[in-house]
């Protein structure tokens, strides 16, 4: 297994958050009743023609600019022909030969450090409708989604692991959400991913035969799908078999993928330029104007956080994943002398605690960080205070005062507790003296207990060690 490496390329579909559909004037609403967000164009009535929504073009250009791609001054919509009941025209309008964006890149941060994933292209296309299976009624078609604008972002096969794939997707999502062109809510299917994967012996230059897994809609499932498919391909090769080029369906319930169709019976999409739509032309001036609308992106923020707040690249990446979180971090970090502590709280403590609560006032969080960083409370008290802050929004300083939680930092107050423990647990003390180093930790815990968690743990250790020499 370890002799092999996975070679992975991703195709990511992202729904653009435009006001209207891509080729008609239907407004895109939240949760419309079936077939109420439709017209004769998006239900593809005979004789109807698509009209390009310029906002879609602008959003696609912004997506391209945000990843450093080349914006093509001329691009063309093509027809991708295939029959399926959710596709009312029996072709999807997409881009094949002349996409709107070529190239680009996404820098990712993994445990192993930084890596660049190159992009092949970004193109615009329309979403299809949705099939709804209703017991007793059969299968019905809902055309609300038909004509919702998407971009497809295609990566080069630069990804080598599930971890890298997830880091790439998170970063890509962050960039696109920051840019303001999408909400990319995974649970709503606004970001979906196809995984192309092949394996080869490490050091090999040629690519193996790849398989494609379609329409995976969560980061975790992408990770599972990659790990499963990597193992499956390696097992096939190790057993002397060959990989068949095929499309596989990933089942998120079993975590397994199964063959959908092989290359032999793959669709021939018969792409050709859509004669109903004139080529899309873009002037430099227009591209420059769109560029000026793009806000500070995750990488720029990340660099700024590392510089201004002295946090690690890894932490900075996590904090910039979500624009809301990054905005929040910045507010809190500016109100404290201990931004690193804010970062720790947000990355390590908050996710476990903050399930049902909104984020607290950033100034109050800064207060908590100050208390902790200045040694006025210890880390376990800090967690308690954080819980209280989330639940009631109480000022940390006030809460600490009211509950008498200030850390005991002076020897005079702490020493009686230490002596008491040494007396009560003489046998444990003896164990330590006899060389059982672990015993010290247990003694520290007992002192902590007696002080109701308020003691400075470093000071306890020092005092205990002095007495046990």
């Amino acid at each position, binding site marked *: 297994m370890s002799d092999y490496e996975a070679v992975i390329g991703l195709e990511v579909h992202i729904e653009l958050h435009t006001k209207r559909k891509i080729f008609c004037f239907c407004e895109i609403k939240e949760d419309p009743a079936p077939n109420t967000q439709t017209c*004769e164009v998006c*239900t*593809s*009535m*005979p*004789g*109807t*023609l*698509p*009209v*390009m929504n310029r906002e879609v073009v602008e959003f696609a250009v912004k997506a391209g600019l945000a990843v450093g791609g080349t914006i093509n001054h001329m691009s063309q919509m093509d*027809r991708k*022909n295939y*029959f399926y*009941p959710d596709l*009312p*025209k*029996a*072709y999807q309008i997409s881009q094949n030969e002349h996409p709107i964006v070529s190239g680009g890149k996404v820098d990712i941060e993994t445990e192993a450090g930084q890596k660049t994933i190159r992009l092949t292209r970004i193109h615009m296309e329309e979403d299809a409708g949705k099939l709804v299976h209703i017991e007793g009624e059969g299968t019905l*078609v809902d055309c609300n989604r038909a004509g919702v604008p998407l971009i497809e972002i295609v990566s080069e096969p630069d990804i080598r692991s599930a971890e890298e794939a997830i880091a790439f997707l998170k970063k890509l999502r962050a960039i696109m959400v920051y840019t303001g062109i999408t909400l990319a809510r995974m649970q709503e299917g606004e970001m979906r991913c196809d995984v192309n994967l092949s394996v080869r012996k490490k050091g090999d230059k040629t690519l193996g035969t790849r398989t494609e897994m379609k329409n995976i809609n969560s980061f975790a499932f992408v990770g599972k799908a990659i790990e499963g498919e990597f193992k499956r391909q390696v097992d096939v090769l190790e057993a002397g078999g060959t990989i068949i080029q095929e499309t596989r369906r990933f089942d998120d319930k079993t975590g397994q993928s199964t063959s959908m169709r092989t290359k032999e019976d793959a669709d*021939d999409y*018969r*792409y*050709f330029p*859509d*004669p*109903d*739509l*004139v080529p899309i032309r873009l002037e430099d001036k227009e591209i420059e104007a769109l560029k000026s609308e793009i806000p500070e992106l995750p990488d720029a923020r990340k660099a700024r956080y590392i510089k201004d707040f002295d946090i690690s690249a890894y932490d900075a990446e996590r904090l910039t994943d979500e624009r809301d979180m990054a905005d929040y971090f910045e507010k809190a970090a500016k109100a404290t002398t201990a931004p690193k502590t804010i970062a720790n709280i947000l990355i390590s403590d908050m996710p476990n605690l903050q399930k049902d609560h909104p984020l607290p006032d950033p100034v109050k969080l800064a207060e908590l960080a100050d208390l902790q960083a200045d040694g006025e409370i210890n880390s376990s008290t800090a967690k308690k205070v954080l819980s209280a802050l989330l639940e009631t929004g109480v000022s940390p300083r006030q809460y600490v005062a009211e509950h008498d939680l200030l850390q005991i930092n002076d020897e005079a107050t702490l020493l009686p507790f230490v002596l008491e423990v040494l007396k009560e647990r003489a046998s444990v003390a003896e164990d330590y003296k006899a060389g059982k180093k672990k015993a010290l930790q247990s003694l520290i815990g007992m002192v902590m207990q007696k002080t109701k968690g308020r003691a400075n743990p470093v000071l306890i250790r020092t005092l205990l060690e002095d007495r046990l020499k």
Partner: protein
Amino acid sequence: MIDKVNQMTISELSEGLRTREFSAEELTRHSLQMIEQKEPELNAFITVTAERAIEDAKAADKRLATKAETNPLLGIPGALKDNVCTKGIRTTCASKTLENFVPPYSATVADRLADAGMVLLGKVNMDEFAMGQTSETSYFGATKNPRNTNRVPGGSSGGSAAAVAGDEAVFAIGSDTGGSILQPSAFCGVIGLRPSYGLVSRNGIVAFASSLDQAGPITRTVKDNALVLNAIAGHDPRDTTSLHVREPDYTVGITDGVKGLTFGLPTEFFGEGLAESIKDAVLDVAKKLESLGATIKEVSLPSLKFALPAYVLISSAEASSNLARFDGIHYGYRAEGAESLDDVYVKTRSEGFGAEVKRRLMLGTFALSSGYYDAYYKKAQQIRTLIGSEFKRVFASVSMLIAPVAPVTAWPLGQSITDPVQLYLNDIYTVPIGMAGLPALSLPVAKDEDGLPIGLQLIGNRFQERLLYRAGVSIEEVTR
């Protein structure tokens, strides 16, 4: 007076309506009577909208009473080819597939004519999905040529041409992809314009080949034609291939004569296969134009020999995609007894489409298939570009071209339906026009030995419709 309306032009009829010599309702009832009388033999109509026509006429009479409205189409009875969508009125494309399809919206052309005050008599017959040269591929039976009912009216807009030639409608809208307005107009002895690509909105006209389709008027006279074009031409925000290029009034200057104009006689339109009587008639008109002060000049367009095969590939390829939506899922015919999804598609499309449509869909699907795309579709597009640039070169030295519309006159019903290749060859003079996106005006100039109309066409540079009408009026005068 009402007995004479069959011989009257739109301008004369409009005058009659305004001076209350007859009402729009009387005029409409006359048309409906003509339809009732002639339809059993001609079969030009698929759907006659008699009630709607009377309503339209009454509304027109009200508008006429105000005297404020000057649109010459107000109260004039016309017909639409049955591939022009009409809200609430079934639009069949002469196919079993759409036998009961009632569109929820109207084509821009239909809306514009309704706004102008046209009285809608009904929807006229055509070749199924506009694929054919004779109107015999219609699911609703063949239309017959009013000039000789043993002959075909031409196609695909055979119903449109026959309705006008048979005095059922004062004018009709047809659509042209590779000659579907020009050729039936020639066969039925009426005036037909194929407008420049982009002049008339395609919104609501059921697509055959999107890059070639254009709707246009079929009328009794050249000026009538210009009046109808006035109502339908112009950019439509619902069709991004339509352009902001229309003339404010296509009748302006049409009586200026041909003096000073240069007419090109393209060698390639007078080669082998052209009936002598047609050749003589066209050259005779050229001579007459010369005597009126025009210059006649021989020109050559050597790439035209590739136009027909390239046209067949491009139009079929686009059709294979355009007609894919008729799959039995969302609207139109669905076959009974299918046992799987694939079965629904196969059965529905096998039963819903006629033989000619299926032939072209298969051909087009093949031409776009992976591995064949470059050799067929792409190559055909290159030929198309080449043809366009040859026309452009020719139009640098001539005002327009003068040529026959078809190599033969209307042939007997039932004769050609078995030999598609021979049939396609009859399109050789009209397909290059659509391929280059040019306008052409088809007009009757003589009769052959069997008394059948001979058509001549004027082919213009893009958006030179007014110039075609100007020459057309002169030709009308010298051939009367």
